[in-house]
């Protein structure tokens, strides 16, 4: 009995944190596998994508290029106004630059993927069709015919 009592008086043993690094590493691997490196910092307001139910997923990330259309962010509205503008890569560009943009995107792809180039149009739902149509026309001229209207899934 005496032996038991003396044990009870002892401090509870510290919780072992030996497995903590392993757990965190597991989390890291999860994030490394399931995410991709963020591509662009947006100079425009984050486009509020329209909702749709009949979407398909674009599985192959490497063949997808994005064109953003939305109103400029508030600090840039002095320069570009409040109407929706086009962002290619890291800058707000004129619509005539799209052909050049497609060319560089094609150039950065492996040769056998080039025909699969898909342009994802990330357009704010408040934008008008006028600018979208102009972009589509430019894409046709640049022979980038596969497009996808980016949407948010709705259930």
């Amino acid at each position: 009995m005496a032996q038991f009592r003396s044990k009870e008086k002892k401090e509870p043993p510290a919780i072992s944190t030996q497995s903590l690094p392993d757990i965190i590493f597991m989390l890291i691997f999860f994030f490394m596998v399931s995410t991709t490196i963020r591509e662009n910092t947006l100079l425009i307001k984050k486009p509020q994508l329209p909702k749709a139910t009949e979407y398909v997923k674009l599985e192959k990330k490497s063949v997808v290029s994005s064109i953003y259309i939305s109103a400029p962010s508030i600090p840039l509205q002095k320069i570009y106004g409040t109407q929706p503008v086009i962002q290619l890569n890291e800058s707000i560009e004129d619509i005539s630059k799209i052909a050049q943009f497609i060319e560089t995107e094609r150039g950065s792809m492996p040769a056998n993927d080039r025909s699969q180039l898909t342009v994802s149009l990330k357009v704010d739902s408040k934008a008008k069709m006028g600018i979208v149509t102009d972009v589509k026309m430019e894409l046709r001229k640049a022979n980038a015919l596969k497009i996808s209207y980016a949407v948010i899934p709705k259930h």
Partner: protein
Amino acid sequence: MKIPLFKSKNMGKKKVPEINGSSMADISFMLLIFFLTATTMETDKGLFRMLPPYQDPSKQQEDVKVLDKDLFVVLVNKDDKLMVEKKPMHSRELRKTLKDFLMNMNNDLEDKQYPGYTEENIPGIGRVKVTKAIVSIQNDRGTSYQKFIEIQNEIVGAYNEVKDYYSLKYFKRNFNDLKESQQDLIKQIIPQKISEAEPKNIGGK
């Protein structure tokens, strides 16, 4: 006198001190936070569409003859109002109307309501009627993108419902559960032809 084996074991332990692993958690946390901030989860989801190749307007193009009855015309004006087959309509009814249009075929030229068909031999299924229907969306420059996508969604939805109908009929399964080769066969029965016409600038911006 001590046992030599016991002694050597004790000495070996003293020589190699344990590496302190407590900072490992901090290092891996740092890495974790890096990946959390520098990456995004989102995969692109969207409505996939093929654009027609660009045609030089200066060159004369041979117009492809399409019968009026094969066309399912959807007009959207700048106030986001819909006109389907010359009748005003709410976008809720679009899916049902288009499904009806895609499921019914009639080669009678007098019948203006439903599209014509061609009979084709599809391996594994046999001779089936393939609709000639083409959906044409015409929008104004002032149409909102929101409405445009809503209409696109309804149209793709109608096509998907018809695909499901044929999949259940021929393979007793939903379209998404079919094998890729079977999906291709269904796609041959119900080809998805959607044309996005150049917008007319009637209402201004």
